[in-house]
């Protein structure tokens, strides 16, 4: 397929971001969280009269049954286009992408992107065990994402101790993020003693289940400096679909195809030749620890099969060569599906602007920042790459 894959670079800027506190938000409605996230982003972008300044909204949620109206009603943004996007765990990144495309196309000047979800109103502690077809197996995300473990471990000799280091790292990073849900260090012993959810995943390999919302205000790059001195430019935003690995005859269960494909597309757009050198900070989809491990390789941060050596070297820790999930990731923020991709953009914008506090990665503003979601069986991946100029 031939695409004009550099057509999007530097056309659109992020000028404001917001994020509500993620957690078991028993006392907050979806509207409450939407308002928290959006108004923080308005303030960050210097928007004083959103009803006049926001021209269009792209929102994403997997669990809501109310459609885009939930967002437009919460923010009282009427008489303008409000669109809802759904793309499994890549929903937030896809909502961001649709907003970016609309600005790049010249349709709007100022657009709000807002991702949210409220799974904790369902009365279950984990994801639902859903059965909507006769032949549906336990439809547990852990059961889907663990299918690469037996094969990967056998081929590359990795094991649960390698996954443990990812969980320990993310728990640590979460203690430094004010809006994270889990703010608790864990030890290798905690990890090993936890109950198994779906082998090899124990409790600490799994993302928490939380409510949350995150927002970004985007505008045309050529007017971004009139809004703020340190705008962040969109270098790339990609979405790729993949076959269901459970029935794909060509799947080797050593990597997830959509991640590699979305990375290829995004690196083309951003002009990235050496991701390990050109990317300074990354938020990757750690719905499960192994998903993060495979992403190191599928995104080209290291060679296929070599992740455990880089984990052992601390390459992906704060202070490492390429810090990953600097805010604690899905592990400590949880995974309100529609919110996650936008929450990652929130963190990357803070990192690029040197506003990430104790977890600030030195040198991050000089390089590019990547965010990545993969979801479904997994069957979809979204990547956004941001940079200062």
């Amino acid at each position: 397929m031939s695409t004009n894959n550099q057509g999007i670079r530097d056309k659109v800027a992020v000028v404001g971001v917001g994020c509500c506190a993620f957690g078991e938000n028993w006392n907050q409605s979806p509207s409450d969280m939407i308002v928290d996230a959006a108004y923080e982003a308005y303030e960050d972008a210097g928007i004083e009269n959103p009803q006049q300044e926001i021209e269009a909204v792209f929102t994403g949620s997997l669990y809501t049954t109310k459609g885009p109206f939930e967002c437009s009603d919460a923010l009282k943004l009427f008489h303008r286009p409000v669109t809802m996007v759904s793309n499994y765990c890549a929903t937030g990144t896809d909502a961001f992408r649709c907003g970016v495309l609309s600005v790049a196309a010249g349709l709007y000047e100022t657009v709000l992107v807002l991702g949210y979800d409220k799974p904790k109103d369902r009365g279950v502690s984990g994801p639902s065990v859903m059965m909507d077809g006769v032949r549906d197996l336990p439809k547990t995300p852990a059961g889907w994402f663990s299918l690469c473990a037996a094969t990967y471990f056998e081929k590359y000799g990795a094991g649960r101790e390698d996954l443990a280091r990812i969980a320990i790292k993310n728990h640590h990073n979460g203690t430094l993020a004010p809006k994270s849900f889990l703010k608790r260090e864990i030890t290798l012993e905690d990890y090993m003693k936890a109950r198994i959810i779906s082998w090899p995943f124990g409790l600490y390999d799994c993302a928490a289940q939380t409510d949350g919302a995150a927002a970004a205000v985007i505008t045309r790059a050529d007017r971004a400096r009139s809004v703020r001195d340190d705008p962040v430019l969109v270098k790339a935003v990609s979405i790729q679909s993949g076959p269901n690995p459970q029935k794909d005859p060509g799947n080797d269960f050593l990597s997830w195809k959509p991640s590699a494909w979305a990375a290829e597309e995004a690196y083309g757009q951003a002009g990235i030749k050496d991701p390990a050198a050109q990317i300074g900070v990354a938020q990757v989809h750690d719905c499960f620890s192994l998903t993060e491990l495979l992403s190191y390789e599928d995104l080209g941060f290291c060679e296929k099969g070599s992740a455990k050596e880089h984990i052992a070297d601390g390459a992906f820790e704060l202070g490492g060569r390429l810090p990953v999930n600097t805010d604690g990731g899905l592990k400590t923020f949880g995974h309100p599906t529609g919110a996650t991709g936008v929450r990652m953009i929130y963190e990357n914008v803070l990192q690029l602007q040197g506003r990430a506090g104790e977890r600030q990665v030195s040198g991050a503003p000089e390089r590019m920042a990547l965010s990545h979601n993969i979801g479904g069986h997994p069957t979809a991946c979204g990547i956004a790459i941001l940079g200062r100029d």
Partner: protein
Amino acid sequence: MAGIAAFGAYIPPTRLPLAYLAGRPAKEGGPEKAVAWNDEDSVTMAVAAAVDCLSGMDRDCVDGVLFASTTHAFREKQAAALIARALDLRGDVRTADYSGSLRAGVSALRGALDAVSGSDAENILVIASDCRMAAPGSALEANFGDAAVAFLVSSENPLATLVGSHAVAEEIVDVWRSEGDPFVHSWEERFVVQEGYLPQMAAVVEGLLDKTSTKIADYARVALYAPDPRSHAALTRKLEAAPRTLEDPLFRKVGNSGAAFAPLLLAAALEAAAEGDLLLVAGYGDGAEAMAFQKCGEGRASGPSRGVAGHVARRRTVASYDRYLKARSLTPAEWNRGGDPGLSATVHFRERDEDLGFKGQRCRSCDAIQFPCQRVCESCFAKDDFDRVRLSDRRGQVVTYTFDYFFPNPDPPTIVTVTDIEGARVHLQLVDCRPEDTRIGLPVEFVFRRIHEGGGRPNYYWKGRPIDPGETA
């Protein structure tokens, strides 16, 4: 001459040590009973017995299916049609259920023999399967077991021909289960045996001997239903049957399998019989029914069959009484807050070939086999150019797996795999396998099981099961 051309059996491999019922730990080699696990019921066991019976045969030869059971899940809805679909039989197959009586198994067998004699049909599959529930702690609990048996009744090339038959009917409330009650109940044991079981069984056997001008001593194998071991012994004394001719009633191994019981013993007798042997089978319930057969040849089965002996030998012990209670839904459980997903009957209907018949497709352009059926080929992108192929009687290999502790299961974990079936990849549960025996490359065969109860109904699908090491071809 009408007779039995092939037979097969299914006994669930899960065994409950009877010691558990007395609160004692299991003893190696101690008495036990066969129990259907939580993904099994009379329908899944029937499919397994039928697969065993039809091994190596062209299934298009089957003209009819008679299913006998007292424990089909639906009050209104036929099991035989579902079983015919799971077996991928012809669309114009005749189907009927025999139910409501312990005697249903032998009655269905007799009905099939009549149909074949009357040349209404050439080959009829008769399946008896039961999974009766006894209240925990009741006297019946130790005697009941679960099993299924299947016969292909035919006038063509039988292995045993019908010599004669006899039936008696009697009204007696001795053993019963009423509407809405999960448990079988029994009146006082001495009444049941003295006024029901013994006189009715003696009358039906004596009537059969009269009709066929035979004596009990002429029979090489005698297969008799009995509510318990003592009654079995009392009846054989009354009939003066020689102990060596008695078919082992399998108490303390399998248990009283209800409507399947007498037919299962007939299958065991057929396994042991020599050419020319006379066999007698008698079933009980609301009267009694008996038949005499003569072994006359090898029959029609051409593939390997596990039969009764093979299934008695294949066993695993339940870890605890509590696990058994959970598997049979006999303990109070938390209401599922996920809610009833309201599974669509339309979807169920549309996908019946794939879900029940386990049919995939072969691409006419590139030959790739795939599942489920799709409009566009997964490999070469050809559109609408496929032949449907049955996957259930093929074999597969585990590509990858996980042990899911999150999925509701009385005996976690649920083993979930991606299994390769001649190139098709299928997300499948693996059953009758321990986690420690699960590995990449494990060869598996396919079994028809319950998968979940979405929509408030039992839903059935296929699962993988390791092939016995001795059986790998």
